[in-house]
């Protein structure tokens, strides 16, 4: 008997679809986030977005314009080629994070509405996804995924071996900037709908699991979204039935999958060692 009250899909169909979509796309993009060592870009950009809203309130401009402007600015800075710089990319990311958090508080301290109001504006939670937001997500994530699939080779080659890529006639700077741009837009949009922590999780935990499990990029790019979708589905189911906050449950499931993956990996290593000697 189908008891619709106890059926996750009947009750939270939109949230479920949104979750699976976001999980799939973000975890694919996340493989490159890890390889490019830009792991904390998710929370950095959400701090920057908060700061943008605070600034927009102060200037009286529309809040989302402010947050978009600052996020794009941050992304532009981060897409600079760091190969020849004296500090690594993540140091700049850390500085952006600090500057954004501190500036938000200062902006709020001197004027504008409170931090709560800003947080409320940027607050997202997967379970609260509405039909309209689902459509927005589709409108952003599907083109992002298409971009990524289409530009797969030039982006991979640029990241893998920038010099060789440039000799091959690949416009490395352009692709790098485009990649970070798309990533920035995806993060900004999805964080606001599904929650910053959850997006961070999709961008990092699931790709990391995939990278541990396989040494083949193609396999990694398939495992990562599968992991993310599994975590999303089971996380939503568990949070539904055990009355837990959804986003955090999904994050924990993803982390458990990571731990399982790492354990399997170690086990396989151990077995191989045993069999050989």
């Amino acid at each position: 008997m189908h008891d619709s009250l106890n059926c996750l899909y009947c009750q939270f169909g939109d949230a479920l679809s949104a979750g699976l979509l976001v999980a799939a796309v973000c975890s694919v993009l996340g493989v490159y986030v890890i390889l490019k060592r830009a792991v904390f870009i998710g929370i950095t950009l959400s701090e920057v977005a908060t700061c943008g809203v605070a600034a927009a309130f102060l200037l009286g401009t529309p809040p989302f314009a402010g947050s978009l402007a600052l996020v794009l600015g941050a992304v532009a800075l981060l897409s600079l080629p760091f190969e020849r710089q004296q500090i690594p990319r993540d140091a700049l990311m850390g500085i952006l994070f600090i500057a954004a958090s501190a500036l938000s508080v200062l902006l709020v301290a001197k004027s504008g509405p409170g931090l709560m109001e800003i947080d409320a504006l940027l607050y997202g939670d997967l379970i609260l996804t509405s039909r309209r937001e689902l459509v927005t997500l589709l409108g952003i994530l599907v083109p992002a995924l298409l971009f990524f699939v289409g530009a797969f080779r030039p982006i991979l080659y640029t990241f893998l071996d920038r010099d060789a890529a440039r000799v091959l006639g690949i416009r490395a700077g352009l692709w790098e900037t485009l990649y970070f741009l798309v990533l920035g837009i995806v993060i900004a949009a999805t964080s606001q709908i599904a929650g910053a922590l959850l997006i961070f999780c999709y961008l990092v935990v699931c790709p990391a699991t995939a990278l541990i499990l396989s040494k083949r990029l193609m396999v990694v790019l398939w495992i990562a979204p599968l992991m993310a979708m599994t975590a999303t589905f089971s996380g939503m189911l568990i949070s539904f039935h055990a009355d837990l906050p959804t986003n955090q449950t999904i994050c924990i499931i993803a982390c458990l999958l990571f731990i399982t993956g790492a354990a399997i990996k170690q086990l396989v290593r151990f077995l191989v060692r045993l069999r050989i000697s």
Partner: protein
Amino acid sequence: NIVTTTSDLGSIAAAVAGDHAKVESICTGKEDPHHLQARPKYIMMARNADLWIRTGMELEIGWEMPVIDGSRNSNIRPGQPGHLDASTNIEKLDIPDAGTISRALGDVHAQGNPHYLTDPLNARLVARDIAERLAQLDPANAEAYRANAAAFQQRIDERIPEWTRAMAAFENQSIVTYHKSWIYFAKRFGMPIAIELEPKPGVPPSPAHLNQVVQTVQQQKIGVILQEPWYSKKPAQLVAGKTGARIVVAPIATGGDPAATDYFSLIDLIIQRLGGK
């Protein structure tokens, strides 16, 4: 089914509804109602609610509308009979003048201070409003609701002299609070609030502000610093260290302390703590 946003409202609504309705509250009293992590259960609660009661005045600005939207329960949308804003008939304090409510001088509590349930007489009003609304939604039990509300009001009336007596020592004795969450309580018991430790919600106190607090405490010979458990005690300790004032930590919502099981025990507890017991 009645769903309230905060546990105080829950406690009052339960008293009014008696056996005729099930009352659930979203916040337990341990969370700050400004910051809430959505769970599927909240949406299920909203979905099955016949009456939704909120504190209003932007206290739940962060999550209320997403939860209602997510529930797709059109009966409890603002403006519907199933939606009750408990602040409707409250005499609101701290409303910024129309002139100064510009973005530049903006304030978190743009519609006034929403922490009005700390005044028992406001609870009295809210009980009446709830009873009227329930009577409208469920005419069959209208009399029962009105009777329950009257009983609740009577209990308040009985306790007021007792509370006032207990608070007599504080009459015209200024206190310091952390957040602007005690103004209704203070006003009721004739206890002026000299200054808040937090210059603005979410903004840490600046050195100049701390100095000002210390000076105020010294000048006005203030003996008590009152705050909720979810704020750090450090600023209060600093001031107390310099002035010898006493720090009182008291819950502001039902359920915020194991002893605060309902609205009456909450007020009892606050007064007890203030009295130094």
